[in-house]
C-alpha cells in the first residue's frame, strides 16, 4: 500500500503532467507564432495543382475545422482535448482523406521494431563492454575500444548515419539503400530475411549511437563500484573474477542504468526519427519527413502529440518496473 502511495501515484501524476504540458505546448505554439498555418498550408498544397472550387472549399473548411479555429481560444483548447480523447487527430493533408492516426499506425510497427531491437542490443552491449573496460583499464582492447567510442560518441547522429549509408549502401552496396522490406508481406523466410536485411544498417547506426553513450556511462558507474571497499575485499578474499564482475560490479551499477534508460528514451526516439529519414525506413520518422516535404502540417502535429504520449507512457512503464529490480524501493 505504501508503495502505491509513495511510488506509483507520483509516477502516474508525473505521466499526466507530461502529457498535459506537452499537448498544451503543441496546441499553443501554432497559435503564438507569426504566420497563419492554414493560409500557408493552402498556398503550398494548391501551389502547382488545379483543384476544383468545391473541393477547395471543403478542403479549406476541413483545415479550419481540423485546427479547431472556430470559437474562443479556451473553447478551441477543450475541443482539441475532446478530439484527442476520441483518438481523432484529423485528416492528413498530403494524403487528404486518410486520417493521421491511420498513417501513424502504419508506421508504428516499423519504428517500434527498429527502436526496440536497437535499444535492447545497445543497452546490453554498452553495459557489458563498459563494465569490462572499467575492470581492465590497462588492456589494449579496452583502451582501443575507449578511443573508438570516444570518437563516435560526439559525432552528430545525422552525420554518423550518412557515413554508414555512403559506406555500406552506396560505395560497397552490401545493404539496400531504401525501404523496410521487399516482396509480399507474410510469415515467409524470404520476407523476414528481407526485413532483417533492410533493418540492419539503420539498426547498426542506432546501436552505435546507443552503445557509445551507454559504454561511457557504464564505465564511469562501474569505476565507482570497483573503487569501493567491498570489491577490494572480494579480490583479497580470492573470489573468482567472473563472480566479482557479475555479482558485485555489474549488479550494483545496473540500477542507475535502468532509470537512465527511461530518461534517454526521448533522445533515442529522436535518433530513430533521423535514422528513418536517412535510410528511408518506413516508420514514423519517415512519415514525419514526408509530412515536412508536403507541408502536411496536420501530420506533423499528429506525430508530435503522438510521440509525446508514447514516450511519456514508455517512461512510465520503465518507472513502474523499477521497484521489481530495486529492493530498496520495494521495502521502503
Amino acid at each position, binding site marked *: 500500500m505504501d508503495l502505491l502511495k509513495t511510488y506509483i501515484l507520483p509516477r502516474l501524476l*508525473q505521466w499526466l*503532467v*507530461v502529457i498535459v*504540458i*506537452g499537448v498544451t*505546448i*503543441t496546441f499553443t*505554439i*501554432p497559435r503564438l*507564432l*507569426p*504566420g497563419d*498555418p492554414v493560409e*500557408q498550408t493552402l498556398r503550398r498544397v494548391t501551389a502547382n495543382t488545379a483543384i476544383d472550387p468545391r473541393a477547395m472549399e471543403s478542403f479549406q473548411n476541413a483545415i479550419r475545422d481540423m485546427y479547431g479555429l472556430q470559437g474562443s481560444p479556451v473553447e478551441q483548447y477543450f475541443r482539441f482535448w475532446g478530439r484527442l480523447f476520441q483518438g481523432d487527430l484529423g485528416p492528413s493533408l498530403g494524403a487528404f482523406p486518410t486520417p493521421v492516426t491511420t498513417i501513424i499506425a502504419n508506421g508504428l510497427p516499423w519504428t517500434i521494431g527498429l527502436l526496440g531491437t536497437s535499444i535492447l542490443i545497445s543497452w546490453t552491449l554498452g553495459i557489458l563492454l563498459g563494465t569490462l573496460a572499467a575492470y581492465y583499464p590497462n588492456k589494449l582492447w579496452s583502451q582501443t575500444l575507449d578511443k573508438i567510442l*570516444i*570518437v563516435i*560518441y*560526439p*559525432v*552528430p*547522429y*545525422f*552525420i554518423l548515419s*550518412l*557515413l554508414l549509408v*555512403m559506406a555500406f549502401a*552506396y560505395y560497397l552496396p552490401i545493404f539496400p539503400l531504401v525501404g523496410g522490406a521487399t516482396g509480399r508481406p507474410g510469415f515467409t523466410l524470404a520476407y523476414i530475411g528481407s526485413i532483417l536485411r533492410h533493418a540492419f544498417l539503420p539498426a547498426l547506426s542506432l546501436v552505435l549511437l546507443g552503445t557509445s553513450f551507454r559504454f561511457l556511462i557504464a564505465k564511469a558507474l562501474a569505476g565507482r563500484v570497483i573503487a569501493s571497499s567491498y570489491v577490494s575485499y572480494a579480490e583479497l578474499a580470492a573470489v573468482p573474477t567472473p563472480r566479482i564482475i557479475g555479482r558485485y560490479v555489474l549488479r550494483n551499477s545496473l540500477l542507475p542504468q535502468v532509470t537512465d534508460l527511461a*530518461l534517454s528514451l*526521448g533522445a533515442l*526516439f*529522436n535518433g530513430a*526519427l*533521423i535514422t528513418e*529519414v536517412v535510410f528511408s525506413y518506413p516508420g514514423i520518422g519517415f512519415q*514525419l*519527413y514526408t509530412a*515536412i*516535404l508536403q*507541408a502536411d*502540417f496536420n501530420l*506533423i*502535429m499528429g*506525430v*508530435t502529440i503522438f*510521440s*509525446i504520449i508514447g*514516450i*511519456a507512457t514508455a*517512461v512510465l512503464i520503465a518507472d513502474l518496473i523499477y521497484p521489481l529490480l530495486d529492493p530498496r524501493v520495494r521495502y521502503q
Partner: protein
Amino acid sequence: MTVIRDMFRFSPSFRWGAGMLLLILVLVALSFVSPYDQFARREVPNNRPPSREYVFGTTALGQDVFWQATFAIRNTLIIAGIAVLVSRAIAVLIGTFAGYVGGLTDRVLSAFTDTFIVIPVLPLIILIATILQGNLGMVQLGVLLGLLDWAWPSKRYRAQILALREEEFTQTAIFSGMGRLKIIWHEHFPFLIPFTLADMVSGFLYAIGLEITLAILGLSNVSLPTIGTMIYWANYYQALLANRWWWLLAPIGITIVVVVAFYLVSSALAVFLDPRTRLKNLAAKGTGA
C-alpha cells in the same frame, strides 16, 4: 597559464583536442578574408573535383567548397554558441535555485523539469520550424535550440547542488558561521566550474547536431551557409549519386574534427580542473617526489 602548460604536458587528449581546435579557429579566421561573399553563387566553374586551384573542389551552385566550408563552420559555431548560452542560462538558474531553496519550490520546479526531459524535442522543433520556415535567422535558430535543451542539464545542476550541500565541508562552513552566499561562492563554486565547462561543451555539441538535422531536413534558412545547409544542398543536387563526394566530404570531415576536438578538450579540462583530482595530483606529487 600554468594550467594550460600543465595540461599540454600531462594530458594527451588535451594536446590532440587543442591542436584540432586551432585548426578550426584558423578556418573560422580565414572566412573573414574569403575572396567570395558567403551568399554568392556562380563564382567558379561548377562541379570541379579537388584540384590545386580549388582545394576541396566546387559545388553544383558554383561555389568553392573550401571557402564555403569556412563560412559554414563559422555560422554553425555561432548558432550553437547562442543555443548553449540560452539553454545553460535557464538550466543554471532553475537547477541551482531548486537545489538551494528546496521544499515545495524544488518539487514544482523538478516536476516541470522532468516533464521537459521526457517530451521528445525533435518533433517539437520540427513543428516550430515548419511554421516559421525561412524566417529563422541565425539568432532565432540559436535561441530556439537553446529554449528546448535546458531540462536535462538543469536536473544535473540541481543534483550537483544537492550533493554539495550534503558535503562535510559545507556543514563545517555553516557551523563556523560562514554566510550563505559566501559558502556558495567560495566553497561550492570551484566544484561547479569544471562541471559547467564540460556541460557547456556537451550542450554545444548537441546544438551542432540539431542545427545539422534541421538544415538537412530543409527547415532552417537554407541560403545561409552552415554545416547542415551545405549537406542539404549537396543532397539536393544529389552529390552522392553523381559521385561528387568532395561536396559532402568537407562538411562531414569538419564536423567530426570539431566535435571530437571539443569533446577531448572538455573531458581533459573536466578531469583537470576538478578540485578533487587536483588534490589527488598534489598528494601524488608530495609522496612521489
